[in-house]
């Protein structure tokens, strides 16, 4: 994990000196987690790439223009990513003429499974995760795939620590149930 102090120094350079190189270094660190997060939600490589780019552009603009306090860069990035994903879902729901909740499920096609090239077990796991509600998917992703702590997840999702612990517990339980059924 990138030392927090280095990240804060880079953030300081971006906010105060508007240093693009400092932002590029932050990009290097966060591009993969954000891409994974977006990809698992949208199930489409091109869309994931586009959205990830947009997330970083928007983050840069926010950091240099907004005077508001930035508690955590990670939180900011994930928040912008989540908002962008919701916009995409809305757009697709209109095009597909299906309810918003069904969009993700519809998008998880055989092609998606092939491109992942994971072994059968991992494939099954992803299928199961995508059957869960969004809140559970997010905590499973952030906790087990990204390896974040409950405190960090709470900051990203803007919930309190205890609440997140409860959600993690319920999500994990649900994942086990669904996995046992398949």
């Amino acid at each position, binding site marked *: 994990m990138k030392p927090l102090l280095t990240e804060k120094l880079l953030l300081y350079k971006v906010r105060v000196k*508007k240093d*693009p190189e400092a932002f590029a270094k932050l990009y290097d660190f966060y591009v993969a987690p954000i891409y*994974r997060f977006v*990809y698992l939600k949208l199930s489409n490589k091109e869309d994931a790439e586009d959205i990830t780019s947009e997330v970083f552009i928007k983050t840069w603009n926010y950091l240099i223009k907004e005077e508001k306090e930035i508690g955590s860069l990670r939180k900011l990035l994930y928040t912008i990513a989540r908002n962008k994903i919701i916009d995409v879902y809305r757009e697709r729901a209109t095009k597909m003429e299906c309810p918003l909740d069904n969009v993700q499920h519809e998008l998880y096609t055989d092609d998606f499974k092939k491109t992942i090239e994971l072994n059968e077990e991992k494939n099954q796991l992803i299928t199961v995760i995508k059957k869960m509600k969004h809140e559970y998917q997010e905590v499973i992703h952030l906790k087990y795939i990204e390896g974040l702590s409950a405190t960090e997840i709470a900051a990203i999702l803007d919930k309190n620590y205890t609440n997140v612990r409860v959600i993690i517990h319920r999500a994990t339980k649900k994942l086990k149930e669904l996995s046992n059924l398949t």
Partner: protein
Amino acid sequence: MSKKFADNLKQMRASKISGINPDSTWVARNRALLLSQISEPAKTAQNEPATEKSMFIENLSKAMQIFVSKKVLRFARASLTMFLAISVTVGGWTATVSAANSSLPGEALYNVKMASEGTELLVNKMLGTEEDKVTTILKHASNRVDEFQRSKSSEQANMAIQSLKKKIESTGESLEKAGQKSPEEAMAIAKVIEEKTEIILTSLATNKTEINETSTNVDTANRLVESHDALKAEVVIAENLIQATSIKAVEVLIQNVEQQKIGEEVITKEDVKQTIARKLDQLVSGMSKLDVEIGVVSSSTIQFDIASSTISTVLDTAVKENKTTEVSTSTTQVVTEAKTGTETVADAKAKVEVATQKVDEASKKAEVAVTEVGALIGQNNLSAALEKVKELGGVKQEATAIVLEATNAVSNAIDVQQKENVVIVPVQMTTVTTTLSQIISSTTNEILNSVVGNSTSTKTISTPSSTSAVVDKVGSR
């Protein structure tokens, strides 16, 4: 979660398999694109000259936000405030504190004063009794009255009054809580409240501050008038609150004495009777003041009649000497504005009449109440006596509100009329001057024509020089 699941999920991140992780070529390409997109705006932003001297402070503030967590900042701020407050109390910064004692709301040292009061209250809460705490709160309430009286602006006065109200409310709450705990504590607090609130009420009523804010800007001046009217209303609310809290305290005293919950060494029945009598006196004297106030307000309405009469006389004279029924545009404007002014004046006069009646009724009720309360006290029926006092308090509150409404209506009418006079006088002067000049000039021409027509010799007839004399005469009315 089973280890297998957790491992499988974790491995996805580490996996070099395409799909779930971004393509490295894309990452590099995107990075270059991102840099190209953000570099230009960054250069422009960096080249902008610093327009504020506080750039350093701004950068420092941003750095603090990034490097220090919110919790730590909050804790540091709270610790610093506590440290300052303790230093002020313990460290002996007497010069600062004594300088701060005379500060007013909004001034630099006012926060030091508040911190010092806060510390004093905290110490009393921790080491003293509830009675000590209430005594301290009322002492601070007196400070607010002092600040109100020394205020230099309506904002300062308003802040002082709001703080005073909060202090009084908190003493009321303390009294209620004490009532649920022990009669002795309730009695002690009630005594303190009754004594101190009387002094506060007297101070508030006398030497009410006159805020001398003025402005040449019409909008600002209007806002000042509104804010002064609002301030007057706030003062009345504060007085009512203090009165009500004081009465509540007396109620507690009566309850405990009648139910013999406390001994005569704490307070005697005679003391309570005298307290009730004092409350009644306060109310009656308040009624007299209202009577005087409405009298003054009523007399100020006479000037409306004088002003209106002057205006119509001037206008009449202008029209008469005009010898024309034509009404100029400027005169129409004058008449319209005079009408608006008349409506405002009529409204004010009506309100003054209502207020005068109300005050008369209230005064009569006060006279009756004095007799009844006296009789009830004589019969040792203290609760009933206090009920009568409370009733009279309600009557006085109503009358005060109506008098305040009338006072505001009159001051509004005076403002409107003053504006009107400013408009009317130059307009009518212009009207008179113009039309008289026209008349004189046309009359002179007629005379000249007739003279020239009837005679072969030309004679110069001097134009009457009385135009300005007539104008002066009209204008002086």
